[in-house]
């Protein structure tokens, strides 16, 4: 019973931490806009918690560069499982328009595994919401899979 409740809660209470790798602010502000009245992601239990130790979902915007890749890795390491990584915007997915710049490593997936890619430049708040929803769906599927795995073994 408790386990079921916990699993349900994991889907209903995604706390996010947002890290701006090297975004031009476009995706950044759109991510912030998700929290504001018109989009109000708190409807899904989302809280912008700001601290990787408390967060379940890491939203990354912008390109990864040589300095912030360590920061990104650190943040990732400080989040406890289960966690979701959502890369936002063309920059976060592949480096976008900056992918040829000398200090750009590329997308977020060059450094940490990414669960959901949200395209756009910038990604619209709607797209970011879609991304979070998609991530939660993935989490749900994983839970399901774990269960069947457990039964099988």
């Amino acid at each position, binding site marked *: 019973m408790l386990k079921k409740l916990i699993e349900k809660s994991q889907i209903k209470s995604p706390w996010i931490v947002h890290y701006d790798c090297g975004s031009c602010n476009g995706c950044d502000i759109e991510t912030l806009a998700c929290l504001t*009245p*018109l*989009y*109000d992601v708190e*409807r899904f239990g989302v809280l912008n918690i700001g601290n990787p130790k408390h967060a379940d979902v890491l939203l990354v915007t912008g390109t990864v560069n040589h300095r912030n890749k360590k920061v990104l890795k650190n943040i990732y390491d400080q989040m406890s499982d289960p966690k979701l990584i*959502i890369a936002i915007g*063309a920059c976060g*997915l*592949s*480096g*976008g*328009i900056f*992918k040829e710049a000398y200090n750009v490593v590329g997308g977020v997936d060059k450094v940490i595994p990414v*669960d*959901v*890619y*949200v*395209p*756009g*430049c910038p*990604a*619209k*708040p*709607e*797209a970011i*919401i*879609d*991304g979070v*929803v*998609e991530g939660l769906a*993935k989490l749900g599927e994983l839970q399901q899979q774990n269960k069947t795995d457990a039964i099988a073994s």
Partner: protein
Amino acid sequence: MPGMIKNVLKNFISKSATRPYPIEVRPGFKDARGELTNQMSKCTLCTLCAKKCPTQCITVLRKELTWEVDPFTCVYCGICVDVCPQNCLSHSTEHKKPARTKTKLILKQEKPPAPEEIIKTDEKPVVPEKIDPGHDYH
């Protein structure tokens, strides 16, 4: 503080401004630069779009008769749409949906259009007028 009380109470009694997004989807603006598509029947594979694209996310392979775009690198700037001599590129008014893996959109051309056809198509592709920009969405 009193100034804010008025705002806060007004918010409290009026309907909240939230657009309940995934439940109720607002139609996109007419000119919104959403997902990029190509009407392949018109495309001549001239590669102009690929040349002008600032992110080099379009690849045109004339031998294989394919036109592909990487929607996860595209910045939806609309340059390709502007430059395409065939007007076969267009943005949908909806944003490209998030995905768990990055995949390219590869479109294959059945047969190259005949040269005379190319000359005929000089009007813009018809995009359904979804919304009137004068409408207030709040």
